[in-house]
Every structure is written in structure tokens, then in C-alpha cells.
């Protein structure tokens, strides 16, 4: 029942959004909350039911480890089979995109945490947004986002996934720009959308390559064909396709070089940052790459690219996060960095580990954001950590839950982050006989930085001396129940979710990887055939050297501890005008980090052209200016010149006509006639009776002639 009605899961939020669109303006806040939160709660229940039913269904012998697919109807395409294109081998394939849903372990995981975290954040928002204008608009957008995200997750083909993909981008745009009267917010919104669009363009092209090569865009068919062995490893078209898909993922999941929109996206309300820009939407890229794993494993170049980009992003963003002062920006860079981790895992072929990190990260990062939101809420909108301090005992629930989340993200045993992060680091170390070991160092350094900037955040916010103004201090209060309850639930998850992937080396059974096995099993075979790896999934893992793994765990714990310690030393007693340790040690580095490596400025000079380089405008705006000039002066100029030449010849012709042809040729004889006519005119003075008289005279003459001839 749940499985067959799986389409209800995305539809419910869509209905909520539609209700808000048409009637939201007239509804009470309570009704708005009831409709929107209710739809998500229902979706969550349905999602749980569907996953539960799916696990039962897929363990039957008939459907063992099969994905569940249901196709409602054809969306794109004529459905008659006559509207076709030709694939690369010349066979016809229809233009086809279904409204179809696919449930397998991969989408189950996303389904659960998206609806779960989404539900909690909806509840949280009823408290957070209670005093804001545009309440119904906010919830309408949130519901629309849930619809898009769930479509993205449950889609059975790339096109429908793209629908969700663009849909979440749109909702992200709308929600970042929620405070649209602020210029910075609308700038950030447009930036997010356009940067995402660049990624989407790559995604589109990747999709076309897949359609051209595989003749279908359904995941099941593509995976099936990819597994069939028709294509050799390293096939250039598949490499191109996967690289283009990864461009899309870079846009959506904020990887280098398209990460720039995510920190700015913090202009949106904090629940939005938590839901969209931390827990769910930004992991869509990870989802898409994991979904296309069958293709990626056929393209080692793409895999390497993914891994390197991921690792670089991780350390790059973490280093920026070290010195940021805006509480949400720290978290934003942390998100970018963690997403880098996930891509690192995917790139080295440890899909399950990457997905595991997505899963745990969703909870603790959402918790961190919501906690930050709670802090901001209590501080009456203040986001700068330099003006906080000593909040720990004033908002205890927020403090404690956030502390749990910090432990989780820093990778302290036994919190969730520890398991997922260590899984990634371990896979990076061990995959392909250590080919990626250089990336491990990067990941390790990142872990150290992560611990440092997270504990820096904690100490600056909750400990040290109070640095806020007296008025603000006076207003500090713990958030309402609707906000703290989600925090507590998420804190529980931040502790517990990691245990799902308790590794074998520590005596666990790593249920998480096992659950995902059907999705990635095929790839393990490919990788093995390739001879690139000796182990991937459970069952093989016992063979590896547990002692090395323990050593690595200990090292990363040490790194986390070191970061914590450094932060403790520097910020424990932070008072007004505290010194940043990095600024004290190497000021130039601090400056570069504080200005985010000047990347935004560089992009403005080179790509967007919003800043002029001297007198020259480069980038798109420069091209646009040049094109506009070309258009008015050259293209339109040519048209006008043609008109001008025509008019010039016209003027000459008319002069010739007037003075030569008409003047001499025509008017000449006329003038002559006129001159000659003067004598004749003497007889005519216009009096009627004179004419009659002349007539009579004529008559006299006439009669005279007849009488006397």
C-alpha cells in the first residue's frame, strides 16, 4: 500500500504549496502551520511506511535486491513510439521521460532523512518564523521545496531528477531571497540560481550524452546497459558524460569552482539554511553521482576528478571557515567542506561511505544550523560571533544540543561524525592499493581544521566574556518549545545515527553499507574486474588490516582533540578585542582567508564582469556590453546605413527629377506655353456675360456667313 502510493509522498507537499499559493494570503498562521507541517508529517509517515514495505519486498526471493519502480505515465514524449531520435549506433530511441518513481536503498536513505529532517525543520520554523511577515509565503516555498526534493530523490529517470534538481534550485532562490527588500539577499538569491544554472547546463549535456549512448534515461535501464559490459572502461563518451554530470553536481553541491553561492545563501532565514543549504538540497549532487555510480566506475578519469575536487574543496572551505566571524558563514563553509568529504568518498569509489556521511551530516549539520538559528533568535538577529559570548547558561538547551553536534562533526567517538568521517578517511587510505593516499593527508588536515573552527564557534558563542550590548543581553531568552524539541530530536540523531555504520574493525556489523549493497554491488564487480581494488563492501572488509585502521582512527581522534585543544586555548576567555591566533601568527594568511581567497572578487573581474579591470570589462557583462555595442553600431548600423544610402540616392534622384527631368523636360514646354498664352488671356476676364456676348458675336458671324455666302 505504501509502495504503490509512493507518488503521494512528493504530492502531499505539492498540495500544501498549491494551497498556500492560492489561499495562503487569507489563512490564519495556525492554519498555515497545520496544512504545511501536516503535509510533511504525513509524507514522513508515508516515507517510513514505504521504506519499511520496500525492505520487506526486496528481501523476497523474487525481487531480491531489486529496486522498486512504478511508472504513472509518460511526461515528455508522445508515448506512441514514433517520435524518435537516433542513438550513437543508429538505432531509434523514443523521446521519453516518465512520471515514474524508483525506490531502492539509496533513495530510501535520502527519503528518510529528507522527510525526517524536513519535518523537524518545519516544526522549528513555526517557532522561528512566528513573528515574521510572509509566513504563508515561507511555508509555501518550504513545501514546494519538499516537493522538488522528493521528486529529485524518487525520480526513476534523469529528466525527472532534473525536474526536482531545478525545482530545488528555484526554491533555494526563492528562500534565499525571502527577505527580498534586502539587496544582499536578492543578490545572493540570483547568484545561487545562476551558478546552479551553470551546473545544470552541464547536467543537461551529460544527460544528452547518456541518452545518445544508452538510448534511455531511466536509471534502471542505464545501469543495466552499463553493467552489461558493452562499454569498455575509460570510454571517452562516458567519461565526458560523467564529467558533465559532475559539473552539475558541483553546482548543486557547492564544490570548487562553483561553491561560491553557498556562503552567500546564508542570507535566507536560518531554517532554510538548515534544510536546504545544509541537510538536503546540497547533497543532491552527491545523490546524483551515487545514482550514476554505474557510469562513474566506467570512467576512472571522472572518478579521480571527483575525488580531487572533493578533497580540494574540503580543505579549501575548511581553511576559510577558520577565520570567519559570522556564525552562519562558518557553518556554511563547514558544509562546503563536508560536502567535499562526501565527494572524496565517492571519487575513491567508496560510495557507501559517502552516502553514510551524507546521512549523518544531515542530522548534525541541521542541528548546528538550527542551533545557530536559536542563538540568532535569542540574540535578536545578531549573527556576528564577535558580539556574542557566554551564552551557555542563558540558553542551555541550545548550548547542549549544539555541543553534541559539534562533537559529532569534529569526529569524536562515539558520535555520528566519527563513524562516517573515519569510514571516508579509511577508504581514501586503503582504496586502490593506496593510490589516493595523498588525498588522505588532505582529508586529515581538514579534520583538524574542522575540529578547530567548530570549537572556535562554540567557545566564541557560548563561553568567554559576554560581548553583546546591554540591550541585547537583556533580551536573551531560550527559544520556544517548537524550536527546542526539534533540536533535542536532532541531537539524539546526531549521537545515534553513526551507530548504524559501526565498522567491523570495532566489532560492529556496518549495517548501513550492507543496506546499500544492492545499489553499489555491481560497481564492486566492475572495480574488481578492473583490478583496481581488492575490497569494497561488507564481507570483503574483514580481510584488511584492522590494526592500520585502528591507527588511523586514533590519529583522526587525535586531530579532533588537537583542534579542540587549540580552540580551547585561544577562545576560552575571549573578551572584547580578542586576538585571532592565525592573525597573530601569520597576518597575510589571515587576511587572505578572511577575504575567502578573494575568489568572489576574482570571479567578478574575470567571469561576471561586475568589476572592471582598469577600463576593460571582462566576463559575461563585458561580452554583453560588446555585443550590445556591436548590435547598435554594426548590425543596426548596417541596416540604417542601407536606409541612409537609399535615402541619399532618393535625394539625388529627386533633385535630378525636380530640376532636370521635371524642370527642363516637363516644365520647360509648359513655361513656353504660358508665355505664349498671355495674349490669349486678354480676351478672358472671367465674366460670364462676356462669354455670352462673344457667343452671340459668334452666332452673328455664323448666321451672317450662311445668309450672305
Amino acid at each position, binding site marked *: 500500500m505504501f509502495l504503490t502510493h509512493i507518488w503521494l509522498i512528493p504530492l502531499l507537499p505539492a498540495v500544501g504549496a498549491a494551497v498556500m499559493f492560492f489561499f495562503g494570503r487569507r489563512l490564519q498562521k495556525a492554519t498555515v502551520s497545520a496544512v504545511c507541517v501536516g503535509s510533511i508529517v504525513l509524507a514522513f509517515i508515508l516515507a517510513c511506511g514505504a521504506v519499511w514495505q520496500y525492505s520487506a519486498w526486496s528481501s523476497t526471493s523474487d525481487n531480491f535486491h531489486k529496486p522498486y519502480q512504478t511508472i504513472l505515465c509518460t511526461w515528455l514524449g508522445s508515448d506512441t513510439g514514433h517520435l524518435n531520435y537516433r542513438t550513437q549506433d543508429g538505432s531509434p530511441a523514443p523521446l521519453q521521460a516518465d512520471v515514474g518513481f524508483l525506490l531502492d536503498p539509496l533513495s530510501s536513505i535520502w527519503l528518510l532523512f529528507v522527510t525526517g529532517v524536513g519535518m523537524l525543520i518545519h516544526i522549528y520554523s513555526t517557532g522561528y518564523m512566528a513573528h515574521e511577515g510572509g509566513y504563508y509565503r515561507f511555508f509555501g516555498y518550504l513545501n514546494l521545496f519538499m516537493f522538488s526534493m522528493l521528486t529529485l530523490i524518487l525520480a526513476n529517470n534523469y529528466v525527472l531528477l532534473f525536474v526536482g534538481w531545478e525545482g530545488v534550485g528555484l526554491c533555494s532562490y526563492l528562500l534565499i531571497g525571502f527577505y527580498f527588500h534586502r539587496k544582499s539577499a536578492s543578490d545572493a538569491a540570483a547568484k545561487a540560481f*545562476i551558478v546552479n544554472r551553470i551546473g545544470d547546463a552541464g547536467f543537461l549535456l551529460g544527460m544528452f550524452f547518456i541518452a545518445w549512448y544508452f538510448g534511455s534515461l531511466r536509471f534502471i535501464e542505464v545501469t543495466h546497459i552499463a553493467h552489461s559490459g558493452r562499454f569498455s572502461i575509460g570510454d571517452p563518451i562516458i567519461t565526458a558524460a560523467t564529467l558533465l554530470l559532475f559539473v552539475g553536481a558541483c553546482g548543486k553541491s557547492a564544490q570548487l569552482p562553483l561553491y561560491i553561492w553557498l556562503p552567500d545563501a546564508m542570507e535566507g532565514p536560518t531554517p532554510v539554511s538548515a534544510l536546504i543549504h545544509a541537510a538536503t538540497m546540497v547533497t543532491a549532487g552527491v545523490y546524483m553521482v551515487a545514482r550514476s555510480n554505474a557510469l562513474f566506475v566506467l570512467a576512472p578519469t571522472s572518478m579521480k576528478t571527483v575525488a580531487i575536487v572533493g578533497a580540494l574543496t574540503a580543505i579549501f572551505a575548511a581553511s576559510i571557515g577558520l577565520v570567519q566571524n559570522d556564525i552562519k558563514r562558518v557553518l556554511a563553509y563547514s558544509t562546503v567542506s563536508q560536502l567535499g568529504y562526501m565527494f572524496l568518498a565517492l571519487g575513491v569509489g567508496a560510495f557507501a561511505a559517502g552516502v553514510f556521511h551524507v546521512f549523518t551530516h544531515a542530522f548534525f549539520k541541521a542541528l548546528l544550523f538550527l542551533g545557530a538559528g536559536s542563538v540568532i533568535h535569542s540574540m535578536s538577529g545578531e549573527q556576528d560571533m564577535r558580539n556574542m559570548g557566554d551564552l551557555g547558561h542563558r540558553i542551555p538547551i541550545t548550548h547542549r544540543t549544539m555541543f553534541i553536534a559539534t562533537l559529532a562533526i569534529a569526529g569524536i567517538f562515539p558520535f555520528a561524525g566519527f563513524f562516517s568521517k573515519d569510514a571516508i578517511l579509511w577508504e581514501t587510505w586503503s582504496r586502490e592499493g593506496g593510490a589516493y593516499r595523498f588525498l588522505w593527508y588532505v582529508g586529515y588536515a581538514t579534520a583538524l581544521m574542522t575540529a578547530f573552527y567548530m570549537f572556535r564557534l562554540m567557545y566564541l558563542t557560548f563561553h568567554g566574556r559576554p560581548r553583546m550590548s546591554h540591550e541585547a543581553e537583556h533580551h536573551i531568552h531560550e527559544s520556544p518549545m517548537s524550536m527546542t524539541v526539534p533540536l533535542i530530536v536532532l541531537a539524539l540523531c546526531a549521537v545515534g545515527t553513526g551507530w548504524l555504520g559501526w565498522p567491523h574493525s570495532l566489532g560492529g556489523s556496518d549495517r548501513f553499507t550492507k543496506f546499500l549493497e544492492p545499489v553499489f554491488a555491481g560497481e564492486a564487480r566492475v572495480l574488481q574486474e578492473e583490478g583496481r581494488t581488492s575490497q569494497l563492501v561488507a564481507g570483503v572488509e574483514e580481510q584488511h588490516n584492522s590494526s592500520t585502521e585502528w591507527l588511523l582512527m586514533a590519529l583522526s581522534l587525535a586531530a579532533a582533540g588537537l583542534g579542540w585543544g587549540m580552540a580551547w586555548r585561544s577562545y576560552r576567555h575571549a573578551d572584547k578585542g580578542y586576538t585571532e591566533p592565525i592573525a597573530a601568527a601569520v597576518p597575510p594568511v589571515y587576511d587572505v582567508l578572511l577575504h575567502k581567497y578573494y575568489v568572489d572578487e576574482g570571479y567578478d573581474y574575470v567571469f561576471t564582469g561586475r568589476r572592471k579591470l582598469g577600463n576593460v570589462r571582462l566576463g559575461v557583462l563585458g561580452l554583453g556590453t560588446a555585443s550590445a555595442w556591436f548590435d547598435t553600431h554594426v548590425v543596426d548600423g548596417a541596416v540604417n546605413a542601407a536606409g541612409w544610402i537609399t535615402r541619399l540616392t532618393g535625394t539625388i534622384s529627386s533633385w535630378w527629377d525636380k530640376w532636370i527631368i521635371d524642370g527642363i523636360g516637363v516644365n520647360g514646354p509648359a513655361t513656353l506655353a504660358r508665355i505664349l498664352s498671355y495674349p490669349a488671356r486678354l480676351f478672358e476676364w472671367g465674366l460670364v456675360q462676356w462669354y455670352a456676348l462673344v457667343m452671340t458675336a459668334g452666332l452673328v458671324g455664323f448666321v451672317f456667313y450662311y445668309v450672305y455666302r
Partner: protein
Amino acid sequence: MQNHILSIILFTPLLGALVLLFVPKENKDAIRWIANLFSLGGFLISLPLVPMFWAQRFEPGFKFIEGSPSNWIPTIGAGYLIGIDGISFLLIMLTTLLGWISILSSWTAIENRVKEYYVWFLILQTGMLGVFMALDFFLFFVFWEAMLVPMYLLIGIWGGPRKLYAAIKFFLYTLAGSVLMLLGILFLYFHHHALTGIYTFSLTALYQTAPKIYSDPAYGPNIAILLFFAFFFAFAIKVPMFPFHTWLPDAHVEAPTAGSVILAGVLLKMGTYGFIRFSLPFFPDVLMHTRVRTWMIVLSLIAIIYGALVSLMQKDMKKLVAYSSVSHLGFCTLGIFALTPLGLSGSVLQQVNHGISTGALFLIVGILYERRHTREIAEYGGISNVMPVYATITMIMFLSSMGLPLLNGFVGEFTILQGTFMENWRWGAWAVPGVVLAAAYLLWLYQRVFFGTVTNPKNEKLHDLTPREVLTFVPLLIMAFWIGLYPKPFFQILEQPVNQIVANVRTPQSGGVVNAATQPDAAQAPIATTAAVIDAPTRVQPTKGTK
């Protein structure tokens, strides 16, 4: 009724214009009511065509044919011969819908010379419908030219400050192209006579003989290419394709709102329609065996990116939308010259989409213009605060225009891109930046006009949409969502004609030199059997879940 439905649709607006002639011009409200009645009537009368056409959407050839060849001026072989296929059907429905909407939208916008305005508008409507219906080249040309005059007057009388410049530019530019087309038509006409001894302008007859020019030793490929360009200029100016587009921004900026809507929504489609209806079937060999097609594709790609870039820099809202039309129409011509069923059907769908979304965009600009009498982007800001409903509708239409999935624009663009990509992936790849730039210029415009706080005190008192204005948008919104959510009917309507055209173009003509390298799949299909060209695919059955 069934047999004459096309004629009824065609002449209803003209009847309205005749009736209006008898209404005293002082009686403005009566004139408005009558004009609206007739335009709405024209739309409603065209609705029964939908089920009728739907019933025979898979049948080959033209449907609802009326008249016969040479029944009009037998001495020269011109006839009143009209009929439609899926392509013209969609465009006709678009025309009747947009005609109604634009007439409705001019209720308060036009205050002087109301009677003439509506009379010309209704005549224009008949002209446009006639272009899409005519199956006789003479008739086609008559409508093609006849529709120029009302548009010229609409721009020239009710336009903005530089209306005369714009109107004359529009008129002369289009006329220049038409003259070349007339020469081309006459050549085909006499060529047909030379081959068969019959003087006729009937399209179906010319379809038989025109493709033979290429391989005819008396003329040869060069003549065929020249002829192709004779038609090309007429259509490319109308579309407008890249170097011929500059009349468009001027005409749009100066035209009254309804004129812009019709100009963008329908008039531009005549160019693309001309390509599909005439250029492709008349000169298949020119397209398949010479470099001409590559040039067409290159021009389309330039239009896509260049139009978007120029649009990015505009300071005038209408000009911005006008250049975005150049970009969008670039997609349409790209789809046409990709010469694949997907490209063609996407192109026609995109033409309809462009009519809907860009039509709506011009209405949107027109509404602000009516309130503030300026189109300068810098004059606005924070309009969302004072006109929330308007802002919402605008957002939806912008999204539709930039091709967001589940709205109409995406369906067309995706199909075009896929069809083009499959023909040559580089073509598809070069077109994709246009999608990104579309988002850039539209969102930037939205941000500058709607976001922020109201900084200009003149904008503080703007009132939101009136019910009449909302009513003008409702059909467009419905269509936008319909095409976006459930485009299958449209694909089914287009399927037969596009396959037919592609089959005609890709099948080697008698005596034509088939270049196997450029045309790997040409040999399969006889001209008339459409389904055979691209045989039914072996569809992989989806894995159905158990209940």
C-alpha cells in the same frame, strides 16, 4: 460546419472588423465590447477544432481542406485552398488565443482612435490566421503581405515616441524579404509549368516539382541554393535570425502592448513556420548536401548566445524582452535546421511556448508601462511590495521563459536540445549556454524591478492587477502549466507532420546525389510513409512494481 470550420475561424475577425465599421467612432465602449466579443468569439469558434483535430491527429497529410487549386483566379492558377496539419493547428490555436488576450489587454491602454485600432487589429488577426492556413502560395503571399499593413499602422499610429522610425523599419525590412520570396515563388511557379505544363500555385503540386531543381541539369545546385536564400531572407527577417534582427527591438519598444504581444507571439512564428512549410520541403537537397545547413545552425547558435548577451545589457524592459525573443527564436531555428523529428517538434512547441511566455512578458511590461509610462528598469525597484499578485505572475512567467521544468519553456528547449544534440553534439553543446544566460538576464531584471525596497516615490501608489488584467493572464498561465506538466498531447499532434517533413527532407530526391556520409539513414523511407522513416523503437519494458 465541419467542412467550413477553417473558413469560419479565418473570417470571424474580419466580420468583426466589418461590423465595427458601422459603429460611430465616438461610442468607444461599444467599440471595445464589440471587438472583444468578436475576438473572444474567434477564440471560442476555434475551440471545436481541437476535438475534431484530435480525432485525426495521426492521419497523414493536410486536414480540413477547403477549396481547390485554381478556383480563385483560374487564369494564373491561384486558388482559395486552405487546410492544416499539426504544426499549423497549434499555431492557429495560439493565434486565436493571443488575439483575444491582446485585444482584451488593450481596453484601457488605447484611448485615441479606438475604432481604427480595433478594426486594424481584427484585420491583422485574419491575416495571420490566413498565413497559417493557406495551402496555395498565392493565397499565402496575399495574407503574408496583407498582415504587414495593419501591423505597420498599429506601430505607426499607437506606438511610442519613435514610432514612425520603427514602423517604417519594420515595414521596409519585411517587405524587402518578401520581394525576394515573391521572386522565388514565381521561379517555382514557372518551373512547375515547365515540368508539367500546368500553371498552379498549389503547395502540394509545388512540393512535387520544387525539389527537382537541385538535380535538374538546366538549373543545378547553385540555382537551388539561390532560391533557398530567396526564401531564407523573407523568413529570416521575419523570425528574426541573427544579422536581420535589429528591426525587432525597435518595433517592440515602440509598438503598443497588444501589438508587441501579437508581434512576438504570432508574427515571428510566421518566419519559422515558413521555414518548416516551405524551405524544408522545397529544398531538401540544398539542406542535406551543401553547407547551407551548417550556416543556418551557426546563425541560430549566434542568435541564441548573442541575443542573450545583448539582452543582459538592456536598460529598457521591452528591449530586453525583445532581445530575449531573438535568443528564444534562435532555439526554434536551431531545432528546425537540426532536421530531426525531435528538433522539429521541439521547435514548434517552443514557438507556442514563446508565444505564451513572451506574450505574457510583454503584457507584464505593458501593465507597468500603463501605470508609470516608462520602461526604464532603473525607474523601478521593490515592486513586489506594492504589487504582490503581479510579482507572482511575473515570476511564474519569467521561470517559464527561462525554461524551468514543469513549465512550458523547459519542454520545448529540452526537446530541441536533445534533437539537435543527437544530430551533432557540438550544436547542442553550444546552445546550452543560452539557457544559463536566460536565467541571468531574467533574474537580474526581476531583481532590479521587483526586489528591494521601493526607492522611487512614484512607485509607492501603484495599484495591483485589476480583475481584467488577471483575466488576461489566466489562459496563459493555464497553458504554461499545461504544456509543462502534460505535453504529451502536443507531441502527439506534432508527431505525424514532423516525421513527414523529416522523411521528405531526408529522402533523396529523384536524381539527387546521395552523400552517404552526411546521410546515413536516408535510404529507408519513401516520401509519404512517415512511420517507416524512424521505425518503431524496441522499447524496453519498464520494470513494473508489484502491487
